[in-house]
Every structure is written in C-alpha cells, then in structure tokens.
C-alpha cells in the first residue's frame, strides 16, 4: 500500500506584473510505501516544498493527482492521519508549547483527556518538558523546531511529512531529529522528509527521490541507487618525498596538504591501490586508505549533469 502517491503532478505559479508562468513542479510521480523513511532530496528551489504543500493541501496542483493514505489530497480527510512539520518554524508564538499542542490536538478532534495525557509525553520525547509552559516566542530556533515536531506528532499520525526538519539545527539537534525519525519508523509510521543535507538522508532513508528544477531525476531504494560499486578512494600519507608527492598529485583527482599529512583522492579503487604500493615501497607512512562507494552527492551531481544536457 502506498502511503503517498502522485501521478503527473504539476504546479505552475504565475509571478510578477505580467503573470509570467514559472514551473515549480513538473510531472512528479512519487511512490512512498507505508512504514518507510522516504527522503525527498534536492537543492534549494528544486520544488521540494511546493510538492509537500500540494500533499498537505496548502497549494492546489495545476495538473496531475496526489493521494495521501489513498485519499485524494483535495479531500481534507486525506490529512486525518497525517502529521506535518513545515519548513521555518512559524508557529503561534503567543502560545506556550502546551497550549500550542492542545490547540492542534483539538483541531484534530482528539478528546481533551487524551490530549492531557499525551502532550506531556510528547514534550518529553522532543526534549521540551522543562519549557512546556513558556511562550514559544521565547524559544530558540532548535526549541521551536522541536515544538513543531511535537505538533506534527500530536495526532499520533500514520504518515509524517517533515519539510527540512534538520535545517538550521546544531549537530546535537540534528542527531535528535534523526533518532526520532528512526524511532517513528520502528513504530510503523511512514516518514517523508525533504532535505538538502545529503549526509542526513543517506544515513536514515530507505528510499529517496532526487528532484531538480521541479523534475524527479532519480527515485528508488538507496541500496539500488548507490550499488556496491567503488567509485573512488582516499589515501592519507605522511613522510613522503617531494618527487613522490608530485607523482601522486599528478595521478590523483585532488590533493590536499593537511599539516605534515597529504590527502589524495583517486577516481578509481585501482589507482588508489597503486599509489598505496608506491608509498609503502618508498618508506612513506600510510595513515588511512578508504575505498569510496557512490554517495547521494554523486547521484545529485549526476542528476545535475543530466539536467544540464537535457
């Protein structure tokens, strides 16, 4: 069963005095299976937020269709089991976190007794127990993001859509959000999140879709998309002669001096292994040698190249 599905989704905005058409999303087909973590990846302005806004009923599609929980997004009931964290932490900041969650819980029709029991637990889960009765306007950005996440979870949804949930957070905040996303999957929920931070997506996603200039250029399971193929290697050495340094620099794709150490990046595994043998033979010291698999960044760059050639 698809938790989220789109077919031929298209959104054209009219901008400026002459109402010039700008295509924000073009023929987007998405398939998000229930119980998975789905990463929606792309640079800023690629169409991630517009797609999410169509899914959450905030933007009306120009063409195509979208379903959440197998219900068309034009029907507000499609959002009955949906939690949504918008990008940018814009909330009713005259409310305390408890009031904020109570308001959104009430909008979902959750009975008062259930809200009363659930809200303190949720605030504890996102690390806001100590600031439950403080007005949101007195929160830091990280705390607002946590309050927003609690809001997305207040209805105990089956599907959670998070728009750039790690944006602007410090490393601890990012890790906390990653842990919560993983825990949500363990609870059987579907998590659909957008990000331009590729490392985060690579660590936690089952499936990803890469969107560029409003079009999906890659979509699938991470293992299938990235494969096992080694696409390069990284060698860090020290105590090598100047001539060997010059030789390795010529053979490598990139060379960086890090104090007394030298880092060389090779295009393939075999080039790296040859360099490794040369360093050992010359009496140099090898600090590390890491074969590198294809990454999401490589996929994104491939996609950008495809877009350029199109």
């Amino acid at each position, binding site marked *: 069963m698809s938790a989220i599905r789109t077919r031929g989704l298209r959104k054209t905005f009219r901008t400026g005095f002459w109402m010039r058409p700008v295509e924000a999303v073009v023929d987007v087909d998405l398939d998000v299976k229930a119980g998975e973590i789905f990463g929606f990846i792309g640079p800023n302005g690629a169409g991630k937020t517009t797609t999410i*806004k169509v899914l959450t009923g905030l933007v009306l599609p120009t063409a195509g269709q979208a379903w959440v929980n197998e219900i068309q997004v034009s029907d507000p009931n499609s*959002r009955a089991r949906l939690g*949504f964290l918008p990008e940018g932490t814009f909330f009713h900041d005259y409310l305390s976190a408890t009031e904020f969650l109570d308001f959104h819980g009430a909008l979902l029709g959750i009975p008062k007794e259930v809200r009363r029991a659930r809200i303190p637990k949720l605030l504890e889960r996102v690390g806001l127990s100590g600031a439950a009765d403080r007005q949101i306007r007195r929160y830091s950005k990280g705390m607002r993001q946590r309050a927003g996440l609690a809001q997305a979870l207040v209805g105990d949804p089956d599907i959670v859509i998070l728009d750039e949930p790690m944006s602007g957070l410090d490393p601890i905040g990012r890790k906390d959000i990653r842990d919560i996303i993983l825990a949500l999957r363990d609870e059987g929920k579907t998590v659909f999140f957008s990000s331009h931070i590729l490392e985060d997506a690579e660590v936690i996603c089952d499936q990803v879709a890469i969107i560029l200039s409003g079009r999906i250029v890659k979509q699938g399971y991470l293992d299938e998309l990235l494969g096992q193929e080694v696409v390069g290697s990284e060698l860090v050495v020290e105590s090598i002669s100047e001539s060997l340094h010059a030789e390795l620099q010529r053979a490598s794709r990139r060379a960086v001096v890090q104090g007394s150490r030298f880092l060389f990046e090779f295009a393939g595994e075999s080039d790296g292994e040859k360099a490794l043998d040369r360093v050992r033979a010359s009496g140099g010291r090898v600090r590390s040698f890491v074969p590198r698999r294809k990454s999401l960044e490589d996929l994104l760059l491939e996609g950008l190249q495809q877009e350029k050639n199109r």
Partner: protein
Amino acid sequence: MSSLSRIWVLARNTYREAVRDKLLYNLLLFAALMIASSILLAQIQIGKDERIYRDIGLSSIAFFGVLIAIFVGINLVYREISTKTVYTMLSKPVHRWEFILGKYFGLLSLLAVEVAIMSACFLGVLVWKGSEFSIGLVWAIGMIYLELALVTAIAMFFSSFTSPYLAGMFTVALWIVGHLLADLRAFGKTSDIAGLRELLEALYWTLPNLDRLDFKADASAGNPIELARAGMAALYALLYSFTLMAGAIVLFQRRDFR
C-alpha cells in the same frame, strides 16, 4: 469531528490571540474614558444632560467597536498567512471555509465582550447620574453589534484577496459611504446630471446601508423602537454579512499558500 467543533476550536484560538493583543486594551481604555467624559460635557450644556450621556455613550460604543472590527478584521486572516501559521492549521483535516468562519466567529466573540464591557461603562454612567435606562438603548446597542458584525465581514472579505492596508482603506470607505447612502440617494433624486440619479440609486441598493442599523438617535431621544423595523434591519445585516463571508470563502478557497 464535526465542522462545528473545528470552527469552535479556531474561534476560541482567534479570541485568545486577540485578547493577548495590547492594542485592544488601549482602545477599550479610550472608549471608557470617552464614555466617562460625557459627564464633563453634560455640565457644559445645561438642561440636556441625559441626552448627552446617551449620545456620547452609544457613539463611543459604535466608534471604538468599529475601530476594533476594522483593525483586527483586516489582519485576522492576513497575519495567519504572512506569519505562515496557517500551514499547521490547514494541513489538518480542516476545510478552508471552516477556517474563515472560525476566524470570523472568534472576532465576533471578542466584539461581543468589548461591547458588553463598554455597555457596562455606559450603564455605570447612567446609574451614577440617575438617568433612565430604556429598552430602546438595548435595541440600539444590539444594532451596533450587528453593524460591527457586518463591518467585520467587509474587512474579512477585502483581506481575503488584498493587503491589510488596502483592505483597511476599502473597509473604512465603505463604512463612511454606508452611513451616507440615504443622503446620496436623496441628492441623486434632485440632480440633473445624466446617469447620476441611476448610479446613486444602484449604490443605495447594492452597498451596505449601515444607516438602517442606526437606532442611536431614536434610543437617545427616548423614542419607541419599532420592532418590525428593527427586525428587518437585523435580517438585512445578517444576510449582507452572510453574502460577504460567502465571497471571502470563495476567494480563500482558491488561494495558494506559497
């Protein structure tokens, strides 16, 4: 969960947001001072004390009520969009018409409390000065409230498709014209300019005729209020407000929140 419950939740939050706004308390304070000032003004004009208490009291309730209706009304929906707080609300199973009605009824509740507080100040002045409190005054205050409901609907209608600045200007303009329609119509009837008579006649029948809801002069003079006239005026205000809110909903329904 029913639409009614969601509208109630939205209205309650709108009310809570508005009562945490300091502007409101400033306006209320000014209104109370204005009503109290009638005591001083009455001392200047000998022999018409009671009329002055009533005139100033009723006018203050109407004027400050309209100020609140316009200032809060034009910002009510716009602020939710500009601060993007609308995102978390409309991404719930909430119909857009429920959202608009929730905001509207939230402001109407606030205005009801405002009018009640100002009326209590007014009553206080009348009791203190031993002036008579007639049923006509209750009617006049009720009609002021219906006028505020209509002005709020005008403000929300304009703010559903334009900026608060323009919405404010249009609403104030309609409020002023709405009180002059009968005069404009009378002027048109005596005019020789081609088409002016028809134009003013058309405006008289299409624009909100707020004079119909004005029972202040009769109540202040102690004249009896005709129930049939008051009933028709109330029906007029309700139907006009309903039409404007339907328009606001249609416009809001097609909006993209970018």
